[in-house]
């Protein structure tokens, strides 16, 4: 697993309080990992901080799963 994926996973595990093995590529933050809409905003904020990038709101809306997040951040940073 890439370095980006490790760091994203760490944030997701810490923030949502889920088991690490639940955070798989297709895992939806809301449907599978128990996030509410405010959690997803906070995750995006945490990603921005960790990777020093800006994630615009329209892009943030497309980040639904762990895999989406890793892909977006890998391309952006």
């Amino acid at each position, binding site marked *: 697993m890439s370095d980006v994926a490790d760091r994203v996973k760490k944030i997701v595990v810490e923030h949502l309080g889920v088991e690490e093995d639940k955070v798989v590529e297709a895992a939806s933050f809301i449907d599978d990992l128990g996030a509410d809409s*405010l959690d997803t*905003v*906070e995750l995006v*904020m945490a990603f921005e901080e960790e990777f020093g990038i800006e994630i615009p709101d329209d892009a943030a809306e497309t980040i639904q799963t762990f895999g989406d997040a890793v892909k977006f951040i890998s391309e952006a940073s």
Partner: protein
Amino acid sequence: MFDLTGKTALVTGASGGIGGAIAKALHEAGATVGLSGTRVEPLEALAADLGERAHVLPCNLSDADAVDALPKQAIAAMGSVDILVNNAGITRDQIFMRMSDEEWQSVLDVNLTSTMRLCRGVMRPMMKARWGRIVNVTSVVGHTGNPGQANYAASKAGMLGLTKSIAYEVASRGITANAVAPGFIATAMTDKLSDDQKDKINQQIPAARMGGADEIAAAVLYLASAEAGYVTGTTLHVNGGMAML
């Protein structure tokens, strides 16, 4: 009780009577205060009066870009905004049948839209801090209506819906959003009334007098405090009993 040492507060309309009293009360409780308003002179006079822990942050609330920039300026000056007090407000009284689009829009822009923009601007850092206090100063007329003030009353009622919705969304993050609804308060705004009008007003108030700006400030101080952490989405009416809501 109500110790705000180490907290930072941004107060709009601090050049006015109520805003100035709010800034003083928060400052006295230990907070660092950002004083915002359109008129620089009274803001600087107030800052000089308060001494340390006071920053002058002029802003024209009818200018959307300036409003969006204000939270950033406040954070640059104070390090954070833990407490946001949306106190600034304008009136453009007119009977409804004659009310122009401009009279309507200018009041909505300053009173309601700027409040929304400032709340939005401080939300991200408050979410991160897991602590925040938003206090929106509304008005009894937002609840009761008032002839000649369709625009003002609508803006204040709008602030209430905004306040409650924000309160819902961020309650789980340690952020509260409440309103303080003044009745008739003796300020420059009410000084414009004739003695006859004032007498008529006082007859409608069980307390038989207008309120003081410091009595509004005390309500804001309470809602800004750590002690009010379980109070959110509510309105504290400070009106001498004129409307028991």
